[in-house]
């Protein structure tokens, strides 16, 4: 390690020490934005994924639309949201970023839910119907509990993806940890950029670990993952 690198490392540590409150505040903003978007995305994506298993032609259409949305580059999607939401005077700030993140999360969540429920052993579904479960009982007592690992994998993908994409939200005025990177670049403060990158990575990894833990708690031991 040469002198220059050592200095950078020290600067980053120093930056963390001096700006802890600011970084925590940005982290809270980031978590707030991504968290709300994911909750809404789950409320849309999981029921939709389950419904799609009963309607094959719609499943093809919806999965195609979701995968095209996924293809749109993140900065372009954020960019498209800005003029569209300025039509209702919300062009810059929370709302366009929030909607863009919801749209991005749809593909992994819908696809995993759809595939998971579709792959429930038909004999198990038949048994559930045959012993007299109602549709709701079958979905909540049999189909979802037996597919939690796959559904959760989709949600985890969406969360990690959104934490990364959430960085770009800073560029359309929605705040979050992207601020560190945006301001670091414009001011040429390398320590700020590195601090931002580290915080975002740590956030992504801890979110993934937390969700894995949740998944372990909520998955029955009888279900192989």
């Amino acid at each position: 390690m040469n002198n220059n690198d050592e200095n950078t490392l020290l600067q980053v540590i120093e930056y963390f020490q001096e700006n802890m409150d600011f970084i925590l505040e940005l982290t809270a903003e980031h978590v707030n934005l991504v968290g709300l978007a994911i909750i809404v995305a789950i409320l849309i994506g999981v029921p939709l994924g389950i419904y799609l298993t009963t309607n094959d032609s719609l499943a093809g259409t919806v999965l195609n639309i979701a995968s095209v949305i996924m293809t749109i580059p993140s900065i372009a999607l954020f960019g498209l949201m800005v003029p569209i939401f300025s039509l209702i005077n919300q062009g810059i700030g929370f709302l366009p970023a929030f909607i863009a993140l919801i749209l991005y999360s749809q593909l992994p969540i819908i696809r995993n839910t759809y595939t998971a429920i579709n792959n429930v052993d038909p004999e198990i579904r038949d048994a559930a119907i045959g012993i007299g479960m109602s549709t709701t009982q079958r979905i909540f007592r049999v189909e979802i509990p037996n597919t939690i690992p796959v559904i959760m994998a989709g949600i985890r993908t969406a969360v990690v993806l959104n934490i990364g994409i959430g960085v770009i939200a800073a560029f359309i005025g929605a705040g979050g940890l992207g601020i560190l990177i945006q301001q670091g670049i414009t001011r040429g403060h390398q320590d700020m950029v590195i601090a931002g990158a580290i915080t975002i990575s740590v956030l992504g990894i801890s979110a993934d670990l937390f969700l894995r833990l949740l998944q372990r708690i909520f998955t029955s031991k009888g279900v192989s993952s």
Partner: protein
Amino acid sequence: MIEYKDITKVYGEDVKAVDDVSFTVEDGEIVVLLGPSGCGKTTLLRMVNRLESITEGDILLDGKSTSNLNEIELRRGIGYVIQSNGLFPNMTIEQNVTIVPHLLGWDKQKKEERYQKLMKLVGLDVEDFRKRFPHELSGGQQQRIGVIRALAADPPAMLMDEPFGALDPIIREKVQDEFLAIQKELHKTILFVSHDINEAIKMGDKIALMKDGQLMQYDTPANILQNPANEFVTQFVGQDRTIKSLSIHMVNDIYSQNKLKENKKLAKQVSLNTNLRDALGAILESKEQAVTVVNGQNETVGSLDFDGINQFISELTS
């Protein structure tokens, strides 16, 4: 009692899966729906709890038309066992066994009593299995759980769709015997799908033999073997129908016709409840080519040899 009244099922425009089938399963009886794959036997079974729709005709359960009943309640009132056992992987054995009582809103104590009683019925340890999951059990154990889950709410009728089909032959024999012993106590009205003639002969009080959606013959196993109604039935029961018929007759049948030979003390002995197939096996294995027959009190009532069985069978088929 399950009554099929002129049942027809048509897929699409003109594919007849079931063609004008009528028969009745009497209370406490096992009726085996038998036939090659695609003959409509499973479709017929699944019509009872309305997993399949009926195009024409009606099925009556204890005199009431099933088409008027709420299908969820109807299903909860009928036991249902399928080949792959259909146990829910996410639930413990206890939860699986008591799922129907749970859906019916039984209280905790009643469920617990029922769970214990059922586990004892199939000889599985109450505590040992309680918290275990289906994948931790052997195939035979899983299938026993599948059977008692269907019995949990004590339904008068049960539908069993090739329930022992996935088990290997030795385990299957054992589970079949256990189930027959349970049925002797419980007297359920049972509809049982099978493609195996030997299983049908063993399990059925009556057999409904199907081909291409039509009922070929509905009769006791003995009559199906001895008086096949047509060419198809003859072929389906096979060249060895004489040997098969051995397994449905008991030594007692010969005894009651007073046709046993004189009392002899021989090396091997069989009881009156032994079926003729097993008795024949014992005769062929014995040194004297004959066996002593004993009654329930272990008193000798006669002896039996190959000629005795041969004579009995030839009189049946003539």
